[in-house]
């Protein structure tokens, strides 16, 4: 079942369109990864789904309701969680208070949700009373995930969850993302570390210059020489190759868009 569908998302900041008809879809329990060069509109696409970037055209549907340009409060209630890349914790609140704030909209017992978060992120248990801002980068990221998981979202959106982390923590964060996904939460994430992200992805979207370039399963994208050469930097490692090779895939736009429709 397709939970989240974004169709023809067009919009940006001020008068400039950063997104030019982007398509995205997440099925229940799926891991979907958005990769692409800097400036491709990956993070913007995610913000647009969450109503933080105004969409001039296009439509976002989540769990049967249209949520185009909706207020975050409504999206959180509907079951969509979002973890921004930066400033994603309340640094002066304790870890426990951060999680409580994540559940602000809930009126029922948050005990089970707290228990699940502490189970998924055991290092947080002994830090619960500590100010979240004092934690290490990896642990802060866990707090950020935990905060967003407190509402039991159906889909969790993660914007570059491993940005700025050391390789050791990166692996740990990827493991946590898989663990979160195994509890039935759909994941939509933007990731610079594209190769590793595509390895765990059910589906991947390659964006460039605000448009879809390729849509396929994670393993197919990794097997596609053109994708690897143009967007995954050929030799492996980090993908951040800038916009230079972005046009290589333009002839495949039409095909990619076709594949995006349900």
């Amino acid at each position, binding site marked *: 079942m397709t939970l989240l569908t974004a169709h023809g998302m067009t919009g940006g900041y001020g008068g400039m369109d950063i997104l030019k008809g982007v398509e995205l879809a997440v099925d229940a329990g799926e891991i979907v990864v958005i990769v692409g060069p800097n400036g491709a509109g990956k993070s913007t696409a995610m913000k647009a789904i*969450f109503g*933080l970037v105004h969409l001039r055209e296009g439509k976002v549907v989540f769990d049967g309701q249209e949520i185009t340009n909706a207020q*975050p*409060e409504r*999206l*959180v*209630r509907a079951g969509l969680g*979002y973890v*921004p890349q930066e*400033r*994603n*914790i*309340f*640094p*002066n*609140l304790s870890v426990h*208070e*951060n999680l*409580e*704030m*994540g559940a*602000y*909209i809930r009126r029922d017992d948050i005990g089970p949700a707290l228990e699940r978060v502490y189970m998924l992120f055991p290092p947080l248990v002994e830090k619960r009373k500590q100010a979240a801002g004092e934690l290490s980068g990896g642990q802060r990221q866990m707090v950020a995930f935990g*905060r*967003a998981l407190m*509402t039991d979202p159906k889909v969790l959106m993660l914007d570059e969850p491993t940005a700025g982390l050391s390789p050791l923590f990166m692996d740990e964060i990827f493991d946590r993302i898989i663990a979160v996904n195994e509890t039935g939460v759909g994941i939509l994430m933007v990731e610079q570390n594209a190769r590793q992200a595509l390895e765990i992805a059910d589906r991947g979207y390659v964006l460039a210059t605000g448009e879809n370039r390729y849509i396929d399963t994670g393993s197919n994208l990794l097997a596609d020489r053109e994708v690897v050469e143009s967007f995954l930097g050929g030799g492996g490692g980090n993908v951040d190759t800038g916009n230079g090779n972005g046009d290589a895939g333009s002839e495949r736009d039409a095909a990619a868009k076709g594949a995006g429709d349900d």
Partner: protein
Amino acid sequence: MIEFFNDYIVAALVLGSIYSLGAIGISMIYAILRFAHFAHGDLLTLGAYMSLGLVQKGFIVFMPLPFLVGTLGLAGEEALAPLRMGWHPALTIPVAMVFTALIAIGIDSLFYRPFRKSQAIIMVIASFGIALMLRSAFQLIWGIDDHYYWPIQPPLESLEPFSISAKHLYIGGAVIVLISATHYLLAYTRTGKAMRAMSDDPDLARITGIPTERIVVWTWIVGAALGAAAGVLLGMDTRVRFDMGWNLLLPMFAAAILGGLGRPYGAIAGGMVIGGLEELSTIVIPGDYKSAVAFAVMVLVLIFRPQGIFKGRML
């Protein structure tokens, strides 16, 4: 030693507490609404005048006219007698807090909310306008003379050799109650935690699903109520005057900045430090210049530690 306590410490504690209560609102409003609220001092004055009404004329000053006419028609003048009874200043504090908070919410929705998405400087100027309007209103209604809640109080004989009068005990008691209540609110209630979360990061609070406009209203309630209480306490300690709060704006800002903007506990600490330094400075400089101390501290903090003691937001 006792002389030092009587001459400086009592005054420092009183002044520091008043600054602390005012600075909490300035600090939270700055962090949550992202503007320097220049009318905050006048909320203190407003609180002080509301208490003055209760002290001099009784609760009747808050009663709407139709209600009074109705009561008169039913039971005659004697029914109003209890409403005309003057209150003890300390008892007026909660009433002044409630009414000042309501007026602050009204000011916010009429004058600040329309500019919520504009640049901060527009809000600052708007608040400056509100400050002028409030001060003019005070002069129109209450005149430019000093008013007193009670006659000059001699030190209590039972506390000899300490020179402490009853008003100091009321002020101290009120401050302890108010700071404890504020701590309870911020540390243990959902709304208080959301206020701290929002003063940490308003954007993240919105993304988290916290109803930010409701928290803004709560911020005004808490900030204005504590400000009003500070005004009443200042009135109890000295006098009530139309510019009493405005004159406190600089030291209260200094306290909020010193403590770290957005850090309520920092504002309390900052208020105590500024109040203490101002009073202690009179050992070495003439008392007329003591308000320069707050200014000097503010400038030094902005240069050397702009995030304040408790790592707040930068101006």
